[in-house]
């Protein structure tokens, strides 16, 4: 139906620093709207205050620190309904939550994961960082270190949750756990890989462009102020 040139529009919205629960509620509300076929696809960007989130596939052994030492670092632990194990979010990390309707040809869980990985690989390439997929684990890797994690939920082919890309994240927070349940998993960040400070806005801007390309969506950037 329609011409091949037609592409769905998607709003890229930067919400800045938002706590996990608020962003979660916002995601949920938008998922419901899209399920009712109201409104546009969106790509929500946030940074979270320090938080450890535990996915549905968590083994329960992934958090290696005790509650006191987690709290001592100003972080808290939140259970959530995405796929994947435990991960950390915090300032300096670009978190992207695409809430989009997967169209007929894209209704494939693995393809969606691969596509999101591709967005990040392409984004990192713009900063001359060669990122790859790991032969076994999901996420995006630079050599043997993980630079971005994924955790996804799909309900009636509407996506939520998404990716977390370390831009200038304080990686010591990952020591509180085995990220994504992978023992001995080492993390890296864009800043470390480039040995230069990279502004968050620049990464966001590239991610939006690549998201539009990979998902064939016409991107419209909004700086803030939805709802």
């Amino acid at each position, binding site marked *: 139906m329609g011409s091949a040139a037609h592409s769905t529009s998607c709003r890229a919205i930067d919400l800045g620093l938002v706590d996990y629960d608020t962003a979660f509620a916002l995601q949920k509300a938008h998922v419901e709207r899209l399920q009712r*076929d109201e409104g546009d696809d969106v790509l929500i960007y946030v940074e979270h205050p320090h938080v450890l989130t535990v*996915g*549905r*596939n968590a083994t329960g052994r992934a958090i290696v620190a005790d509650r006191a030492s987690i709290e001592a670092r100003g972080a808290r632990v939140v259970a959530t*309904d*995405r*796929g*994947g194990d435990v991960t950390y979010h915090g300032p300096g990390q670009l978190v992207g939550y695409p809430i989009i309707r997967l169209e*007929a040809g894209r*209704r*494939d*869980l*693995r*393809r*969606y*994961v691969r596509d999101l990985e591709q967005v990040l690989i392409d984004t990192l390439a713009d900063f001359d960082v*060669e990122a*790859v997929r*790991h*032969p*076994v*684990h*999901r*996420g995006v890797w630079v*050599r*043997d270190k993980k630079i971005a994690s*994924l*955790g*996804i*939920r*799909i*309900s*009636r*082919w509407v996506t939520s949750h998404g990716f977390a890309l370390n831009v200038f994240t304080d990686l010591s927070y990952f020591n509180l756990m085995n990220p994504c349940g*992978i*023992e*001995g*998993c080492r993390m890296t960040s864009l800043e470390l890989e480039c040995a230069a400070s990279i502004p968050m806005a620049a990464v966001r801007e590239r991610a939006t462009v690549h998201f539009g390309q990979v998902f064939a969506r016409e991107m419209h950037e909004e700086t803030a102020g939805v709802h």
Partner: protein
Amino acid sequence: MAVDVIMPQMGESIAEGTIVKWLKGVGENVDRDEPLFEISTDKVDAEIPSPSAGVLLEILVPEGKTVEINTVVGRIGQAGEARGATAPKPSAAPAPSAAPVTPAPRPVPATPVAAPATPTPAPTQPAPQPAPQSAPAYVRSSPVVQKIAAEHGVDVSLVEGTGEGGRVTKKDIMTYIESASSSTPPVTQPAAPAPAPKAPAPAKPAVFASGQEEVREPMSIMRKKIAEHMVMSKHTSPHVYTIFEVDMNEVVKRRDAMKREFEAEGVKLTFLPFFIEACIRGIKEFPIINSAVDGETIIYKKTVNVGIAVALENGLIVPVIKHADQMNLLGLAKTAADLGERARSKRLMPDDVQGGTFTITNVGVFGGTFGLPIINQPQAAIMGIGTITKRPVVIDDAIAIRPIVYLSLSYDHRIIDGADAARFLTVVKRELEKPAGA
């Protein structure tokens, strides 16, 4: 008339799913399209809507279980409808789309059941047939599994099933084929090479019970075969190693210049094709690198079939780029990407791993500066590529920062001398360092 709820297919490559949560309990009402259960695959959780309105009569697959697509996981019907009152076959998967497919009407089973119109609960009914709780013996595998089995000439009954009711899942059969193929090596014996490109997953730490000093674990078949081949190779060929440092500056430039062009072809241009191309030049000048030993005879091979070691979860595999010497950079990039992808998704054909004449292994993928791989018998040499790292180097008496890689060649000293190896690596280095414009 009860409706089967089945595990839907959530993507082309997805053969099974894990039920993480039932959102409704037995006896609860559910509307058509209302979320009924949640499944999980890899990093994705998905909510599955109910194929029909009614009461959830039974849950056949509990939370935490992994089953193949099209497996009946539950049943929806009228309140009081007898359990097990359903058609013998599951209907088509109701894809959880906006418009779910309603299961096709099916023949009423011959056994007496409560009529669907009966609103009142039927009294306890003697069930003449055994409850279809566990899958009958003949459905121990799905069509997908049977197809794979047929393709590989595997007798499914020999495969141990880990799925629901002992079913053979896709994973089971792939594991079986993988271990079987490494246990009966093809004529050309592409032994798994290199200990260097280790399995990507960190080795599972042994679990020690308190007071226990050691844990003994039998090797998997694949592990045994790798062990055997490694020992055989070391026993057969006196290995010698030569390492060259190569400045990748020009390759980086060439790659940057060509990247877009390749992307237009749908191919991501990595560094690997440049290494392969350089090795082929080296082999053309020093054919001994592309040879094999047969007793007291040296066999020189005209065609260059380059094996590329790919790390897998529990070992490694070496798919082969056939006739690599007749490919341009685009062909090499496309073939390497295709083989790598199929190796990881376990879709390699037996032919894909045979006939290699020279092997390349990327020991840098997991961070190695360089590695000293073991020769992939009956080949004569294997090249390891280390991590490309920016290092200070002296160029014309000035210090410059350049992307540097260490290339290691392990070779069979029965037929290749150090001088040959160095000459070969000199050509490889020259090819990689030649000015981007050339």
